[in-house]
């Protein structure tokens, strides 16, 4: 501020061209930062480069001669920092998906609040070109959907709201469609010059209900895809805000996120053999539960259970063990215990690797993050396509809290809701040990026929204590 007040330097700093140059530097850094995220060795630096870009963009904006109301700015930034920093520092690695959902949600919240404020400042877009109204209203609808949708996703992952689909039944699609039409109609009315704030609030309410109505019926297993989709939505709404405010930094950064979010969403949906429209249509887990009940009947429910001591013996005399981690490992914080077990087995000459399904856990790469935290060497982690041909020469597959991603129904049972989803072909290995808390079906709500396979032994218990017990038993052998 003192620099900006300087008579010569100040006018230079506040020159529009100079500020635009700062914006160009900022989004170049975003692009460079995202490129850095393409490899594990450059990713940390990439993220920091993007953060520097953000700092430059914020400084450039504050230098803007039209800037004012510094007290409000300081208040807002202080509040945001006071909430955001401790949340980011203290969140457990297992709770990461919901944290991303929450951070995504507040971004969407900021977007629709900014649109609302623009509406009020311009007396309902009375003295702006029509396109400004259109983009601002688009941002309001999409931002509001993203805010409420992300909050529901957070609630489901945090298990405040049941993970199972909550649906209005057959009328669901119609309800969604009507809400969308109402929101768009309100937008058209305002863009056409109604200047009515009541209608603007109606638009926000319809979009909010739509965000809730779209995400509530979606089962927990699809949640990563939903978060990714909402991330793309928030990016697009930020880009629309950028066009309404004529701000290149917002346009570029928002659109890059919109594009990347779309790619990620597609990759995740492909990995689950699900189409994005089918996911948004919802009800995945609901249908699965019915299917699962029939499946259990067919198998007669013969499940073989084992003890930690038996499992230890089985593992100790294997020459090749593949560990298949899933959400159960994450919830139990078992990654360090798993690493200890691996060390113990390796000291006995057992070859150990990890098979990682692209959507194991609740987000792509979730398992990698946890195992990396426990110092598991990067080259022991095998992706699905590399891991699958190896199962046939694997003596023991140790499944730790993974369920749907190992379910052979995806290959064998055309009636199963997960039919066609690529799975880790654990059933090909010579024997299987599954560590699981109970026989409850997994997040998708589908019974797993792997557990009824004669070569599968179930070790019931919390992943962390079960793995620790096996490691303890190993030392007695």
């Amino acid at each position, binding site marked *: 501020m003192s620099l900006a007040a300087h008579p010569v330097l100040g006018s230079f700093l506040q020159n529009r061209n100079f500020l635009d140059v700062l914006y160009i530097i900022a989004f170049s850094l975003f692009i460079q930062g995202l490129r850095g995220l393409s490899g594990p060795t450059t990713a940390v630096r990439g993220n920091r480069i993007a953060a520097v870009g953000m700092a430059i963009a914020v400084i450039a904006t504050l230098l803007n001669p039209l800037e004012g109301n510094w007290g409000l700015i300081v208040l807002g930034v202080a509040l945001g920092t006071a*909430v955001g920093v401790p949340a980011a520092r203290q969140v457990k690695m297992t709770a990461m998906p919901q944290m991303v959902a929450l951070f995504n949600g507040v971004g969407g919240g*900021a977007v629709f609040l900014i649109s609302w404020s*623009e509406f009020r400042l311009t007396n309902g877009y009375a003295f702006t070109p029509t396109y400004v109204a259109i983009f601002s209203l688009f941002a309001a609808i999409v931002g509001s959907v993203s805010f409420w949708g992300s909050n529901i996703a957070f609630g489901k992952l945090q298990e405040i709201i049941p993970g199972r689909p909550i649906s209005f039944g057959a009328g669901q699609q119609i309800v969604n469609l009507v809400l969308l039409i109402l929101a768009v109609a309100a937008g058209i009315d305002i863009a056409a010059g109604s200047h009515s704030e009541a209608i603007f609030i109606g638009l926000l309410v319809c979009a909010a209900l739509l965000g809730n109505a779209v995400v509530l019926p979606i089962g927990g297993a699809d949640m990563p895809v939903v978060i990714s989709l909402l991330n793309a939505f928030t990016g697009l709404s930020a880009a629309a805000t950028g066009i309404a405010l004529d701000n290149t930094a917002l346009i570029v950064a928002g659109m*890059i996120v919109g594009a990347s979010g779309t790619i990620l969403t597609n990759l995740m949906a492909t990995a689950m053999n699900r189409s994005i429209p089918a996911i948004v249509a919802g009800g995945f887990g609901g249908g699965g539960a019915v299917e699962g009940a029939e499946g259990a009947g067919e198998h007669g429910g013969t499940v073989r259970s084992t003890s930690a001591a038996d499992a230890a013996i089985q593992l100790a005399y294997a020459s090749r063990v593949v560990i298949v981690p899933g959400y159960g490992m994450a919830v139990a914080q078992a990654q360090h215990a798993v690493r200890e077990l691996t060390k113990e087995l390796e000291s006995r000459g057992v070859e150990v690797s990890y098979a990682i399904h692209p959507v194991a856990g609740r987000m792509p790469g979730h398992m990698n993050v946890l195992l990396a935290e426990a110092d598991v060497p990067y080259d022991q982690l095998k992706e699905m396509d590399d891991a699958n041909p190896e199962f046939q020469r694997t003596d023991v597959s140790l499944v730790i809290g993974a369920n749907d991603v190992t379910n052979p129904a995806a290959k064998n049972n055309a009636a199963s809701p997960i039919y066609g989803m690529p799975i880790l072909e654990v059933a090909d290995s010579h024997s299987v040990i599954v560590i699981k808390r109970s026989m409850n079906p997994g997040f998708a709500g589908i019974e797993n026929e792997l557990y009824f396979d004669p070569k599968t032994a179930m070790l019931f218990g919390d992943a962390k204590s079960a793995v620790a017990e096996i490691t303890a038993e190993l030392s007695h052998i």
Partner: protein
Amino acid sequence: MILASVLTTNLAILVLAGFIGFVVISKVPNTLHTPLMSGTNAIHGIVLLGGLLVVGFAGNDTFNKIILVIAIAFGTINVVGGFLVTDRMLEMFKSKPAKKDGED
């Protein structure tokens, strides 16, 4: 006419940014998808700039001031929280393959 050209320039930037997003991000390996989602999530915290710009015009409208402070706070949470969380996740990858030399 001047307004129309501002719009078309911005639309061109929008389309090109979309293509850059596709090209840059399609190279990211599976294992980094969670940090990538978190990192892009932090970048759309750029909406903070929107709040900072509009608050300059807030005038005497108290309600407007309130929603803008909330918007700025939300944007700040998105930016600060997003980058910090991504950094924490990525730090875990760093210690293994990288030989602590910081350069590559």
